[in-house]
């Protein structure tokens, strides 16, 4: 009997793969799943193996975006943090420059736009950009939230209950959902641009869709 890996994982893999490799690479994984992994390890472990393989491809597609976004976040904390404090002094009546919040929003948005456009161009699929934006935003936000909460838990455990309270968890979830949605939306715009550029390029080269 021909067993099949999780449909969602296979669909996700095919979404991320370049058009050239979509059939061959997914075929290789399916062959290995059916021929050696499933018969020796059973359905659950075989599915876990398949998801891990798909995770590898996902990380391969997202790692640069995630790294750039994390780097920007830490740089903006280090460079713009004191600037923001200076802005606070300015509001208190002391002449200082206004904190340039745009600098904290525009660079990550540009990275997500580029990542979305590149993913859609490579995969020849519009939704690949959205998928990369979703995964990258989710990972980056989780890391940043962990960086925000963990110091309290480690060095001020008496305040940890604040981080674990219902209100804090609600706020953290809200931040996670809103930043991931915003990141996905921006990368989707990039994906749209990548898809349009890809089609224009194919038309220019005279390749049939």
């Amino acid at each position, binding site marked *: 009997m*021909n067993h099949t890996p999780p449909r969602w994982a296979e669909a996700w893999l095919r979404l991320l793969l370049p058009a050239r*490799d979509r*059939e*061959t*690479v*997914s*075929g*290789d*994984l*399916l*062959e*290995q799943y*059916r*021929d050696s992994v499933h018969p020796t390890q059973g359905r659950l472990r075989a599915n876990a193996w398949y998801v*891990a*393989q798909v995770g*590898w*491809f996902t990380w*391969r597609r997202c790692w640069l975006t995630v790294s750039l976004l994390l780097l920007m976040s830490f740089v903006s904390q280090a460079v713009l943090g004191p600037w923001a404090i200076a802005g606070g002094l300015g509001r208190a009546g002391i002449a200082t420059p206004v904190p340039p919040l745009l600098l904290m929003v525009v660079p990550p948005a540009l990275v997500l736009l580029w990542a979305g456009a590149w993913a859609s161009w490579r995969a020849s699929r519009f939704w690949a950009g959205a998928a990369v934006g979703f995964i990258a935003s989710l990972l980056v936000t989780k890391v940043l939230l962990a960086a925000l909460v963990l110091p309290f838990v480690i060095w001020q455990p008496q305040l940890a209950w604040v981080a674990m309270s219902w209100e804090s968890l609600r706020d953290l979830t809200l931040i996670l959902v809103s930043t991931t949605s915003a990141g996905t939306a921006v990368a989707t715009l990039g994906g749209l641009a990548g898809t349009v550029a890809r089609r224009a390029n194919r038309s220019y080269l005279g390749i049939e869709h």
Partner: protein
Amino acid sequence: MAVLLGAFEQAVLLAIVRLREDAYGRAILREVQTRLDRTVAAGAVHVTLNRLERRALLLSELGAGTELRAGRPRRYYALTTEGRQALNQAHAGMHQLWRGYKPLRGTI
């Protein structure tokens, strides 16, 4: 100019040489895992194959699919002349590096 090959790239090229006409993605992965004696992600092999093909060390062509693969085609790989030269250079370089070495006493 000599083409530099990483250890994993050498393992993939050697697997293709050993597999001859049967060198497609999954067979290469299995051969690499056997020779390196460790688990390797399928994606790592595919990324390396694509990189070697971009560097013109490999060429590929599509083959027929099977029922086990739900009819999806296999991509078969073969070394180009540049690929063979690069592998020979890597072998000669490795041989030169290890020539005259005797295992140090007490380490084996």
